[in-house]
Structures are given as C-alpha cells and as structure tokens.
C-alpha cells in the first residue's frame, strides 16, 4: 500500500466502482500530478499533455470496472492508461503535423532526430538518462515513444533477439536505480 493514500487501494477502487465523487476527487488530487509528469515526458507540449491528462481521467472514471487488482496496482493501471494515451497522441496525425514531424513509419530508419537527447529531463526520463547510451536509446524508443520490439530492431538494425535481451537488461538496471 502506498504510504501517500488516505484510502486503502481496495477502498478507493470499491468507492470508484460506486461512482463516489469524493473518491474520484481524491484520486485526481492525489495522482494527477504523477500522471501528468509521465505524460509530459512523452508529449513534450504541455498544453497537449493537459488534454491527454483530461482524457486519461475521463477514461479512468469510465473504465474503472475493467481494472483487475490481481494483475497489478491501481496506479500501475492508471500509469499504463496515461502512457498509452500519450503515445496515441504523439502518433496521431494532427500532433505529428503540429510539430512538423514526418510520418513515423515512412521515417522509421531516420533515427537521428529521435535519438537526440530530449530536453525534458525530469522523472523517469532523468533516471533513464543515467543509463548507458545503448540502453537509454532502447528505453526511449520502447517506453517513451511506444515502438514495438520489431520496429526498434528495424530502426537500430539490430537482431530482434538482441533488442529483447537489451531492453530486459536496461529495465533491470532501471529498477535498481529507482528502488
């Protein structure tokens, strides 16, 4: 149980399932900054990031009954909703056009812009920044940009097996750094 909650997670979930406004209000107050932090590491424009956060909380409210506590913590579930929404946003056509980026698939081999260090050095990304270069790139592409292992294998011209092993190793290092 998180030391920051005043509700236990089970209490919170069961109240949310009953559409308890107070519980949802608490959820927002307590978790929105953490989720906004993650979204900001993926969507670099903070106005767009705020739109994503709004969608994320609407989705949390709507989909709370699809949360399965046997599969993980509530925060993990929300974090994945936030990450997926943020990645969907950066892959959406209007967003790509707005940042004058080229279509991802057509440009999958042009990695220069993608691998350049991101200015946004906060949170998990800051930790990732401390990883050695070949790990940092892999985490950036997979976690923050949402590429599949197959796509990364093509982008970096590495065998798929190598990509998988290195990502696992990178994640293990990441874990020791944040724990």
């Amino acid at each position: 149980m998180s030391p920051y909650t005043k509700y236990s997670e089970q209490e919170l979930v069961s109240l949310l399932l009953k559409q308890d406004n107070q519980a949802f209000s608490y959820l927002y107050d307590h978790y929105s900054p953490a989720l906004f932090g993650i979204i900001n590491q993926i969507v670099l424009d903070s106005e767009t990031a705020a739109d994503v956060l709004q969608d994320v909380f609407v989705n949390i409210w709507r989909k709370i009954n699809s949360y399965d506590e046997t599969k993980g913590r509530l925060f993990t579930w929300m974090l994945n909703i936030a990450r997926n929404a943020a990645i969907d946003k950066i892959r959406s056509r209007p967003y790509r056009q707005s940042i004058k980026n080229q279509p991802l698939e057509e440009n999958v081999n042009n990695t220069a812009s993608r691998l350049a260090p991101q200015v946004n050095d906060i949170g998990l990304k800051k930790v990732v920044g401390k990883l050695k270069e070949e790990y940092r790139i892999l985490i950036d592409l997979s976690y923050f940009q949402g590429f599949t292992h197959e796509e990364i294998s093509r982008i970096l011209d590495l065998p798929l097996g190598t990509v998988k092993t290195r990502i696992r190793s990178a994640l293990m290092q990441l874990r020791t750094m944040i724990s």
Partner: protein
Amino acid sequence: MNIHEYISSGIIESYVLGLASEEERREFEEMCVSHPELAEARNSFELALEEQALKNAVPPPAGLKEKVWSAISHTTSPSKVINMETSRRSAGWGWVAAASIFLFLGAAYFAVTFYNRNKRLETSNENLVTRINQTDSLLNKITEEQKIMSDPNIMVVNMVGTQKATPGSASVYWDSTSSNVYLVVKNMPKLPSDKQYQLWALIEGKPHDLGLFDPHAEVILKMKNTQKADAFAITIENRGNTGGPNLEQLQSMGKAKL
C-alpha cells in the same frame, strides 16, 4: 528457467511498464497466480515506480479538474458502461439514420427532377405530334389542291370583286363531270364574327346555295356540288344563313362558260 531466474529476467519491469508482448503478459499473469513470490516482486516494483512517479509529479494546470468533472458528468459512470456502449451504438445508428434520410432526400430530389424532365419531354413531344399532324393535313390539302388544279376536267372561274372599296377575289374550281366545287380564296376582306361569306351558283337566273365559308381559310375549300351553273357569286350573309342571298351584299361574281 526457475522462478528466481524468471523474476530477475526483466519480465516484471517489462510487464508493469506495459512493454511485454501479449503472449508474455498471459504467461506472466499465470505465473503470478501460481507463484506468489512473483506477484510480490511485481508489487514491490510497482510501489517503487509509483513512489518515483509521485516524487517527480508535475502539477497539472488549474481548472483541469473542473474540465474532467464536466466531461464525466456528460458521459456517466462505470456502472452505466453498457448504457454508454449502447448509446454509442445508437449514435452509430443515428449516423445510419442520418445517412438514410440524406439518401432518401437525394433520391427524392432525383425523382422530382426526372419527373419534371419527363413531363417537359412529354409536353414537347405532344407539341411535336400536333405540329406534325397540322403539317400533314396542310400537306394533304396542298396535294389535293395541286391535284384539282392540274385536273383537265376542271374549269376555273375567277371571281371578280364587285365592290370597289373591298375588292374581294377568289377562284372557283368546278368539275362539271363530277359536280365537285372547290373554292380558293385569294383576297377576301375579314368579316365581323356574325357574318360569313356564301357561295352561290346561278342557274337560269336563280341562286343555288353552295355553302357558307370564312375568308381566312388559306387553302382550298370543298363546297357543295352542282351539276349546272351559269355563273358563281359570293355574298355576305349572317353567320349560318339558310335563306336566300342578300344580293345587295354581292361581293364577287364570275361567269361559268360552258
């Protein structure tokens, strides 16, 4: 691979961070059920991640919470998810309905357009038929006239106007063998609507009615037959006259020379 190797393979982090494949996820979830220590390890990574995220929180813009509230108050609640699905589906049907109304209106528009066009074509077709009929009957009359004029048995009597003010002229085509009488009006002044011209045959000084006619006929007129005639005369009579000729109103005369 034993469970400890599995725990330290990076699968936990991969799973929690949403980087595991579908197959890896299924396997991991099954393993968690059968190996509580795996679920425990997962939970501790999740907590570390949550703590890390809370430490690196970024306050969202003020007013966003109100936007979220207003968005969810419009949509609704977890327990009404099924309703939402159906309402979304009905929104889909709404589109179908809208599309079908649109199609219907489109079809109706074309139906009206084609109906009108068809109507116009019918009208113009009728007009053409009428004109063809008129032309045909005119052609028949002209052909008939031509035949009469070129018939060697026919005698032509030119009627000369008797009134200086209104010099009427016409020609009588008389076939003395068949008794047919035709009249070709050349120049007869128009009459008031209650008056008509009448052609007479003068036989031994007595007038015999050969028929009333209107002067506007542009082609040959078939009049009543007569076997004899010394002369022909045209008078102006009351429309539909059945009596004798009003000789004061004698307009034209011509002698038939046999």
